[in-house]
């Protein structure tokens, strides 16, 4: 059974220094609040896994929480670069960042393998590509039946996965709707799984075949309204495209970035205080 906890408690208890952490959500339902809380609690030496690092990992990398990044596409969607990621890779700031890069198909398969309890995933990929030359974790194997050359990659088995979802019921069963990305696979591949949700309801009213994660497969459920902003939560709020553009200016410069993190994340008690502070600043503009 998942425990209903505050996000502060959940991160304190279930995310440790040195953990392999996956904050998943493909453009949709990105667990921003959890990334903030990891910074507030000053976790270090994390291995971060995520198909699209997005703003959440730009934050964690720039704030000095990460020692390694496992990813498959590291840009700011519709805007351009992730400047903190680039600065870490190109200039080792604020510290060197080991990177292990894959393709989307590869990482998606690796999560499926992780959720399936398998040591590796097999897929038709990478023939002729330079990606395996810079990622020794990508190997090639011969199909034992046809002889075809296929790619093999280790499964993703995070110590802890964090995802955001629309709602949970009082027992901690979670409903996810809309673009699912690899959230279900990431949740089931992990040793521990924290889910932040928009709200707790009496009855999920989940349609048959809906994506429901049962409470007994999860570790903690935390109510964090708006917890996926500036990404979106289908049925609750839309993507804040302007913030993704603003992020380009905030993150472009080390000092601006650090000042922003100090003021808005380390300088706020929790995500709702952060949202209030950000809203006040946006209004003043």
């Amino acid at each position, binding site marked *: 059974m998942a425990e209903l906890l505050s996000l502060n408690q959940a991160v304190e208890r279930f995310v440790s220094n040195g953990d392999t952490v996956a904050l998943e959500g493909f453009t949709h339902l990105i667990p921003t609040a959890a990334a903030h809380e990891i910074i507030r609690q000053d976790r270090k030496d994390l291995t971060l896994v995520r198909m699209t690092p997005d703003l959440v990992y730009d934050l964690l990398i720039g704030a000095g929480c990460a020692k390694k990044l496992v990813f498959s596409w590291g840009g700011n*969607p519709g805007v351009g670069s992730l400047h903190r990621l680039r600065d870490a890779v190109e200039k080792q700031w604020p510290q060197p960042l080991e990177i292990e890069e894959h*393709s989307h198909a590869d990482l998606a398969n690796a999560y499926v393998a992780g959720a399936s309890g398998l040591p590796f995933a097999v897929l038709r990929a990478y023939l002729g590509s330079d990606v395996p030359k810079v990622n020794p974790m990508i190997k090639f194997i011969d199909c034992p039946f046809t002889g075809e050359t296929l790619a093999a990659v280790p499964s993703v088995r995070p110590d802890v996965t964090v995802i955001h979802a629309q709602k949970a019921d009082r027992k901690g069963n979670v409903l996810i709707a809309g673009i699912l990305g690899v959230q279900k696979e990431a949740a089931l591949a992990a040793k521990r799984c924290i889910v932040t949700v928009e709200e707790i309801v009496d009855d999920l009213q989940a349609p048959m075949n809906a994506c429901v994660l049962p409470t007994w497969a999860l570790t903690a459920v935390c109510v964090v309204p708006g917890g996926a902003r500036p990404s979106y939560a289908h049925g609750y709020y839309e993507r804040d495209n302007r913030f993704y553009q603003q992020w380009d200016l905030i993150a472009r410069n080390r000092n601006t970035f650090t000042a922003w993190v100090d003021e808005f994340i380390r300088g706020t008690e929790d995500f709702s205080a952060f949202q209030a502070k950000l809203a006040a600043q946006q209004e003043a503009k």
Partner: protein
Amino acid sequence: MNYSTNEMMTVAASRRLGNSSVCFVGIGLPSKAANLARLTHAPDVVLIYESGPIGAKPSVLPLSIGDGELAETADTVVPTGEIFRYWLQGGRIDVGFLGAAQVDKYGNINTTVIGDYYQPKVRLPGAGGAPEIAGSAKQVLIILKQSHRTFVDKLAFITSVGFGDGGDHRKRLGLPGDGPVAIITDLCIMGPEQGTNEFVVTSLHPGVTREQVIENTGWEIRFAVNVATTEAPRAEELEALRALEARTAAAHGQTGGDE
């Protein structure tokens, strides 16, 4: 009607999509061209985005690969793993539609790094879905603006494979799809030459000279024996494109990305 070179590029690319095609769409220029096709000559084209929507029919261009409208207008939304496993690797994609940071004469694509991988001059976003789209789609279309910096003699990094070292290299590698069939730019259309699979200019956009193309290509670009002139954008194509861009700007406060 007057038109820009970017509009010519998008229209030329959109014309390559047939009405019965199942198309795996990259974000940015490919998404713009694919949706223009759907709004003009190919209303039944099936657009698949890697985030999970199958049969998406957005009224505005998505800014991200997983915008909510893609899901709302889709025939079905499946997990990302399923998109790559069943629908792409399963052999159900007719056309993979890709952008690129850089391309070489054999249609190989770099979206990873400029300069040395371990001491990068510019770190680019990386592979995303492109390597397996380039590998497994039955055909691939590449769209990008042409310049010395984007059309290079030798890629610093081959992220996604076109024809490898040329000739039958792609086949020898064992990639299932046929590879890139066209590169559409703001100046011209290129196609793979039979036998060598080197990309040569097959059609110049109206008013573009051979010298312009030569100047904006990092290798010694060659021209097909018969070089056509691309048909200028028709009024209905331009109207549909501009209306789509206007709706996108109104919805997002920005144009939908040209990178």
